[in-house]
């Protein structure tokens, strides 16, 4: 009996749910006005955000858009965010300047200058690109969106679509625009911008110091300008011309030290943030886990610029952490791309990956496997070495004799070198042998001579002999200390972090919104900085270096790396 009642109850519930769904998505009924009025403020903002970012009406239908006046296009392909960006503060692409669309600026009249920054060249030059107009009202803004006519009666249809948005939906969109980039992000006051860096306890102190030194130098240099500007009018004028009000602001860098197991980090991060909110995290370092910090940044909408980590979190949609690259995995991907170009020559012989079971080994092998599969090539054979299991010459010879591979990839540390050396000149040796140059560490530079001509290496950085020209710029930050006392790679990575932050803050026109920090980075072209052959930024791109060289070590006592491939990128 009770089972029957339950059954009827479930049926009634399902019918009710169906009716509610039909009411919401019924034909011709976009979204009942009464229902919208009852929405919570958060839900209203969410729906407005969806219109702005995804081009979807509250009903879930795509916004109808028209370009050139009457050519219909899908509103989800011509979203507001694609030009006005996540922060709504507009974009600059070459000569095309898209004005801000956040309520705070829309509902102010626009002059040919920005009040308060009339004499700051980089800000006033920006203002000159944009047409003068009176302040928008709700009605004139709705007219702009629906008809493409601005308050000066000028048509904008040559650069912007017009959208079919009903009055009820328009109210939601305007509410969202009014909330967009309305108040400066936490961690910013008129006098100061607060930053923090996350350090995982137990990280090698030399590495930590190498990460901190450039950041602290940069912060100190900025603060001395602020101090000097307060004491000396000439310095103040010079600083103001360069940076506007940013010249008088000081920066601070807190150290957020994470202790104990990663499961406890979230609570520690919350406590640090509660105690002192910051505008962004700079750098940061961990030799192992980083995901809890990544997740914290996503949830708090807190930017983290260039943490020094081996295993970044890989995501196509996450927004708030900017990594240098996809980590060591990128080397595995590069090997797959390099070998796929010559795979036709393998005559049906296999590719074999010998993988040390470890986080590094797994990442390298997985990068190779995935890219090899994308290329449509038959899966490579894999031999896994357990932690602590030695790769002896006999073991490697057995693997080669059994599999007869055309290409042998060994993902292991320098302990594998004797086995690789023993393969040289042996009958039936693979045509090509590749390993990770970075995993070999310093042993890379002392490879036995006979091995050098036979071993190919991945190298995800610019060749050291070509990167020396950046030594002066990096060395300047050490204020008399020796370059040799630091980790060369991390020092350069941290140099990049502070350079990019400096460039981005200058380009932000004193609009200190976290999303605008990333919007600004996304507008930067390819950068030529130390360490990486090229760093690319673009809207939503979160892995700046996309390439890797395949190299060989030259003969002699002072060998160099020689490129065997171009910058193999994804």
């Amino acid at each position: 009996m009770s089972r029957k009642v339950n059954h009827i109850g479930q049926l009634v519930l399902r019918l009710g749910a169906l009716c509610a769904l039909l009411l919401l998505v019924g034909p011709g009924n976009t979204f009942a006005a009464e229902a919208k009025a009852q929405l919570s403020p958060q839900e209203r903002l969410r729906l407005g955000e969806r219109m702005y970012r995804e081009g979807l009406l509250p009903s879930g239908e795509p916004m109808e858009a028209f370009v050139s006046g009457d050519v219909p296009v899908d509103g989800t392909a011509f979203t507001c965010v694609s030009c006005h960006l996540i922060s709504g503060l507009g974009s600059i692409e070459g000569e095309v300047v898209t004005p801000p669309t956040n309520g705070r600026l829309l509902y102010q009249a626009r002059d040919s200058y920005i009040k308060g920054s009339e004499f700051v060249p980089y800000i006033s030059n920006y203002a000159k690109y944009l047409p003068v107009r009176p302040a928008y009202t709700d009605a004139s803004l709705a007219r702009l969106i629906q008809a493409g006519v601005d308050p000066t009666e000028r048509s904008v249809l040559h650069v912007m679509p017009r959208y079919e948005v009903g009055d009820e939906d328009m109210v939601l969109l305007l509410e969202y625009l009014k909330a967009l980039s309305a108040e400066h992000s936490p961690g910013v006051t008129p006098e100061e911008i607060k930053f923090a860096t996350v350090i995982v306890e137990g990280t090698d102190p030399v590495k930590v110091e190498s990460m901190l030194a450039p950041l602290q130098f940069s912060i100190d240099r900025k603060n001395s300008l602020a101090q000097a500007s307060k004491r000396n009018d000439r310095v103040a004028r010079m600083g103001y011309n360069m940076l506007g009000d940013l010249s008088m602001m000081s920066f601070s860098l807190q150290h957020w030290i994470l202790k104990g197991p990663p499961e406890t980090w979230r609570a520690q991060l919350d406590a640090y943030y509660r105690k002192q909110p910051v505008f962004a995290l700079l750098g940061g370092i961990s030799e192992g886990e980083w995901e809890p910090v990544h997740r914290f940044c996503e949830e708090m909408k807190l930017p983290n610029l260039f943490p020094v980590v081996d295993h970044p979190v890989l995501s196509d949609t996450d927004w708030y952490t900017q990594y240098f690259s996809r980590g060591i995995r990128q080397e595995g991907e590069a090997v797959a791309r390099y070998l796929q170009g010559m795979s036709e020559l393998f005559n049906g012989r296999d590719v074999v990956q010998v993988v040390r079971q470890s986080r590094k080994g797994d990442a390298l092998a997985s990068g190779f496997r995935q890219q090899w599969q994308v290329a449509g090539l038959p899966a490579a054979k894999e031999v896994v070495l357990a932690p602590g299991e030695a790769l002896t010459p006999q073991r490697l010879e057995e693997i080669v004799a059994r599999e007869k591979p055309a290409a042998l990839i060994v993902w292991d540390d320098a302990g594998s070198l004797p086995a690789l050396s023993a393969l040289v000149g042996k009958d039936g040796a693979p045509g090509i042998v590749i390993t990770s140059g970075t995993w070999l560490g310093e042993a890379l530079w002392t490879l036995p001579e006979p091995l050098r001509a036979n071993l190919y290496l991945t190298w995800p950085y610019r060749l050291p002999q070509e990167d020396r020209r950046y030594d002066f710029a990096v060395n300047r930050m050490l204020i008399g200390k020796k370059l040799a006392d630091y980790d060369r790679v991390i020092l350069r990575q941290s140099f990049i972090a502070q350079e990019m932050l400096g460039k981005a803050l200058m380009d932000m026109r004193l609009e200190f919104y976290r999303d605008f920090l990333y919007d600004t980075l996304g507008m930067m072209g390819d950068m030529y900085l130390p360490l990486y052959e090229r760093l690319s930024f673009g809207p939503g791109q979160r892995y700046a270096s996309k390439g890797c060289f395949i190299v060989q070590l030259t003969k002699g006592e002072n060998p160099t790396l020689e490129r065997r491939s171009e910058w193999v990128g994804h």
Partner: protein
Amino acid sequence: MTSKLLLLVLAGLLTLPLAAAAEETGQKVYLVKDYRYEPGGSTGDPEVGQSLCGTRCNALSSDYLNFIEPGGWRMVKVASDSEVVLDLGNPFMQGECVCLADEYLVKLVEYNRPKEVKP
């Protein structure tokens, strides 16, 4: 007398470019513009060879935008359309790559170079 003096000046002027060339000791870089595969005796697929030569020749090319020096630098073109011949360097296929490249010398500007980095 005057004509002898003129001859002397002329001879001096003619030797100037040689002297200047001898001083051109900057780093040599290549900007590769084209490449082709020369199979020689190899019987491999020439198209694969051509593709592999792309990788080989492009690896020779230097990205001049990487040059950053305190004090500045300039690139002096010393040869156009040089044919740089490289072994294909592939264990599965023989042949050579002919890389068509412009050769440049990177000359550092010493006048503005900060004292601490002057050799």
